């Protein structure tokens, strides 16, 4: 029992000797160089209770009044008909020739005018409905033997008006105009 107590005392002494380096003269010197702790007194200031200020209502700054002057005013948009509502006008000039064998100049004029009107209707139909074209070439021994182009037009034209008729030197020219309603026709013409 005594032995165990002795051993434990020795061990504890040994451990204490290791843990305490301050006992050395170097450690003592270090201890001297450490700055002394400056203790500053804490001054507790008395709390002054002041009545809370009345909440200041924020006055809304009056907004600047909208300036009404011609410079700042929105410019009125022109009430013009847009492009899509403008009438589509198609003008053509048909030509017709009087036959050589006529009984009178009046008959020649009448027939030439008739031919010119028919030609003008054809031109209008070409523009409004279009032309079907077929062509064929025959080439033999690297030479064109026959060349043929055929065109077809088939349409019903309404609301066409004769604008002017000129008869000169046996040739009659008839100017015709066709006015199309854009609301009805623009989509059709654009789709082609």
């Amino acid at each position, binding site marked *: 029992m005594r032995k165990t107590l002795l051993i434990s005392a020795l061990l504890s002494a040994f451990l204490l000797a290791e843990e305490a380096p301050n006992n050395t003269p170097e450690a003592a010197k270090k201890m001297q160089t450490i700055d002394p702790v400056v203790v500053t007194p804490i001054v507790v200031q008395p709390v002054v209770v002041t009545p809370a200020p009345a909440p200041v209502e924020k006055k809304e700054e009056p907004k600047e009044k909208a300036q009404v002057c011609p410079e700042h005013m929105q410019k009125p948009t022109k009430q013009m008909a847009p492009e899509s509502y403008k009438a589509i006008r198609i003008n053509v000039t048909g030509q017709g020739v009087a036959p050589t064998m006529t009984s009178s100049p009046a008959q020649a004029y009448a027939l030439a005018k008739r031919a010119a009107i028919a030609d003008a209707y054809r031109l209008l139909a070409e523009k409004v409905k279009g032309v079907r074209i077929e062509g064929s070439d025959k080439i033999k021994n690297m030479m064109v033997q026959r060349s043929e182009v055929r065109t077809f*037009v088939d349409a019903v034209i309404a609301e066409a008006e004769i604008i002017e008729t000129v008869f000169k030197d046996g040739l009659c020219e008839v100017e015709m105009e066709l006015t199309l309603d854009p609301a009805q026709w623009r989509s059709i013409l654009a789709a082609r």
Partner: protein
Amino acid sequence: MAFDLSCALSTFHIHMGKAPQRVAVIISLLFAVVCLNASQTYILSYRTQVKNAVVISESYQFSKAMTEIKATKAESLSLYSPHETNLNTIMHLHKDEILEFMMKYGAHTRSHEKVHNSKSSSLLQLTLPPSYITVDFNDDYATITRLITD
């Protein structure tokens, strides 16, 4: 028309007791007035063929409608034709105006053009489809009205 009828009826009452012949005359007059005022329906059609810019054939047909039709009146054209009662003459005298008026409401055009070895030839056909019209005579004017069938 209502005025004519009332006049006729009043004269009928006045002269009732005098003579039955007068009554017959009045009734016949009344019938004639009714018939003259009624407009007759006609069918008009036109076709022309133009070859190489020269008219080669033309047909202008005008005849009474053989059957009654249900139609509404559309646009009309007044032709000044004094001292002329024959409808055929009027229709041929004012052929250009009538055709221009009728073609405004639809003309069928068909064209074939051929270019063979750089030589072109064309055949054009302009047709006014058979259309109903009425003709009324009033104060030296013949009024042609286009009819649209229901």
